[in-house]
């Protein structure tokens, strides 16, 4: 029986684990926490699927077309088509596995239910899965669950995972932090983890490894996600030679609230229900989106709105002189604010002390999603033999920009594909061979750690890195800022960083993060054009010559960036 090791237990990781187990593999699912603590649980708006139940003549082909258009030429058309074709079936399976989607309407077939008989109750029929409009798509195609799709998906998939665990087909290891892959006979044969309870290094042997470790928000100062998704696995694999792609493609969400802890998403629903963005000019509210984009107004695509807010603030029109504009909800009907926009009003009340039915909400753009990541082909192979990647850590499906509600889909579909490829290609080494390689890898980790001096605590080093990354990789970048970022990065001495006991490996993961940070900045520097999630002040035009994948690689002494044709398949 083949053993598959999955790293990370968000939507991509859990789905990959279940699929690999279905295919008869023995699965080890390792992560620092329980699945429902992962960033996936935060997804709010929905998951896209061309179910075509709204009489709008929708189809997977149109879903693919919209995805590719949002991707501005950088998404792999074949991968995207395969995903959108599989999607209606995936949603059907999710529904049958108990995901509580919102439903169109319900039909009471048998009124006997009223006298309390179970049989009567059971013939009550659920209506179709409800679909809503979402940014960048003309058809109603986004399945949702009130405003918490992530929680509903994670709970249901975790429920299914529980069965596989009970049957002994998936073993979950918690409080394990991935530190490094182990290579034997030219392939990845497992990994080294730090046990964050005991602080000891532990090795896990496997015939294939799937990285499902999420995005890189934790490398940036202000982002909407979880700091657990900190790019550490991507960084550790990158440091071992895995190529990374389109790292500069970073999606900013235009409307987030800035709280002492973090930036929190205010979903498009606020503007969908009539919320207006404004700032003050000559003592009056200036609805700049409506003035600049009379047709699309406040509901223009995310990148357009983000850049508009950025411009207003850079031109000195930020509200109260800060990097923020106002979101006007107080003029909407009171029930809209308190009912339809309940979560948003609660967020504003809890974290800003603002009553949205009486006052505007100050909002600003913040980092929300990473289109780039580990370079994978449409089978989810990375460039390292034996290592596969899926979910937000992988560069797949979204090209230069992601369509809202496509990433939970990409994580679930990608997790399946990665598991199928891994199960097919898994090829292990003997226990003896692995033990030898693992021992060498552990020794290498200890050697690296022994070089570290206790000068700066990791939490503070990360904080500095986050600030640097956020200021160099704003909504609009230019050569000078990116070069300054690289220069500052070079000034951070990785070996002066140390981490508290039981987390000592964080110090070497920090070294790897510095490399990844360099790759992100270098990729942004190399793409001398503007496209999707990458806007350059010094190269504002889109240049057809750059309709290619940005590929960054670490060759042991330098980060190198090149451009590949789209849709490569790795042997």
């Amino acid at each position, binding site marked *: 029986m083949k053993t598959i090791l999955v790293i990370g237990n968000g939507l991509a990781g859990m789905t990959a684990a279940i699929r690999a187990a279905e295919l008869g593999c023995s699965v080890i699912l390792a992560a620092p926490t329980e699945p429902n603590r992962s960033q996936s649980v935060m997804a709010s708006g929905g998951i896209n699927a061309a179910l075509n139940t709204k009489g709008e003549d929708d189809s997977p082909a149109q879903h693919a077309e919209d995805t590719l258009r949002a991707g501005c030429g950088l998404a792999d058309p074949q991968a995207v088509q395969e995903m959108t074709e599989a999607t209606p079936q995936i949603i059907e399976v999710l529904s049958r596995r108990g995901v*509580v989607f919102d439903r169109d309407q319900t039909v009471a077939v048998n009124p006997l239910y009223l006298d309390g008989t179970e049989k009567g109750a059971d013939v009550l029929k659920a209506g179709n899965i409800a679909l809503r409009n979402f940014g960048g798509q003309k058809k109603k195609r986004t399945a949702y669950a009130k405003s918490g799709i992530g929680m509903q998906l994670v709970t249901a998939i975790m429920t299914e995972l*529980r069965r596989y665990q009970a049957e002994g087909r998936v073993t979950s290891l918690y409080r394990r932090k991935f530190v490094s892959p182990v290579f034997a006979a030219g392939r990845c044969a497992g990994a080294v983890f730090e046990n964050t309870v005991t602080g000891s290094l532990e090795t896990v042997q496997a015939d294939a490894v799937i990285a499902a470790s999420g995005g890189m928000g934790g490398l940036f100062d202000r982002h909407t996600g979880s700091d657990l998704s900190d790019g550490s696995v991507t960084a550790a694999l990158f440091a071992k030679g895995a190529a990374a792609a389109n790292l500069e493609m970073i999606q900013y969400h235009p409307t987030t609230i800035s709280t*002492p802890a973090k930036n929190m998403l205010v979903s498009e629903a606020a503007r969908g229900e009539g919320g207006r963005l404004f700032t003050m000019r000559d003592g009056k509210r200036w609805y700049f989106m409506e003035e600049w984009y009379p047709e699309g107004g406040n509901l223009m695509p995310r990148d357009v709105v983000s850049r508009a807010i950025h411009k207003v603030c850079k031109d000195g029109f930020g509200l109260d002189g800060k990097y923020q504009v106002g979101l006007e909800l107080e003029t909407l009907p009171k029930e809209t604010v308190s009912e339809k926009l309940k979560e948003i009003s609660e967020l504003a009340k809890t974290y800003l002390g603002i009553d949205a039915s009486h006052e505007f909400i100050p909002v600003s753009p913040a980092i929300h999603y990473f289109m780039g990541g580990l370079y994978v082909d449409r089978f989810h192979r990375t460039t390292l033999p034996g290592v596969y990647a899926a979910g937000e850590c992988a560069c797949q499906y979204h090209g230069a920009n992601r369509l809202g509600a496509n990433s939970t889909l990409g994580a679930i579909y990608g997790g399946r594909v990665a598991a199928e490829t891994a199960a097919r290609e898994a090829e292990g080494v003997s226990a003896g061979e692995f033990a030898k390689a693992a021992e060498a890898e552990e020794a290498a980790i200890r050697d690296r750690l022994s070089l570290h001096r206790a000068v700066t605590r990791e939490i503070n080093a990360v904080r500095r890195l986050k600030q640097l990354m956020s200021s160099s990789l704003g909504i609009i970048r230019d050569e000078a800022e990116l070069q300054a970022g690289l220069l500052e990065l070079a000034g951070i001495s990785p070996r002066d960083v140390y981490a508290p006991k039981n987390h000592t490996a964080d110090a070497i993961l920090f070294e790897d993060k510095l490399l990844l940070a360099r790759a992100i900045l270098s990729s942004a520097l190399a793409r001398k054009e503007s496209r999707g999630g990458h806007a350059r002040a010094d190269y504002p035009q889109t240049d057809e010559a750059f309709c290619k994948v940005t590929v960054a690689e670490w060759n042991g002494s330098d980060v190198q960036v090149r451009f590949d044709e789209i849709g490569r398949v790795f042997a």
Partner: protein
Amino acid sequence: MKGTISVKRDGKWVTFSGEYEATTPVTVILSELNSRDPLLDVKGREVEPIEWECSCGQKVCGACAMVINGTPRLACSTFFGEAGPDIRLEPLSKFPLIADLKVDRTQMYDSLSEMKLWLDEGVDAKVRNIDLQYASASCMLCGCCLEICPNYTGRGKFFGAAGMNACFRIADQLDGAAKRARLKEFARHGDSGCSKSLSCGQVCPQNIPLAVLISRMNRDRIISRFIRD
């Protein structure tokens, strides 16, 4: 505003002083303390950074549950203004301690497995209680309800509100014998040990209507006695 933060470490209090805004959540206070290098307590002694858990930072993931001034709560939505100026932080006491404010909540997940809370095969969506199913599936498995519960010890066969809540959605989505089996699990591991004090509902950060779910399952159990497939 000046204040003190006391953290339970190995059964003893370690106290720090600091100055925070009323709007600063406990999560930010803990990060701030851990960024002090060296970290000194009020007596000027150097101590190890504080172990605690956090992920979403905004009341979605349940990671940051701890006992704040004697009440189980989420650190990310408890603010200095309401909990200060002197804040006491303790780990949830019903779970094995890892260190400081960090506990191992695996037993809560294991109890859901023990009750076989899964769907044996695909189900047709049911709309009977769709809003309640949604609420039930919103449980963060934070453990606040177990902490406050007078009857939950973490060792016996009583799995508390978190267990009963999870039972609801699965039982509600199932039919016939499979449903009855889960309702039996609810009776064995939930209802029979619950004294209906309902403190759980008061501390649940998700406001899950636990009392309603419990009474629905009790009703379904009675109904199911009269049903033959």
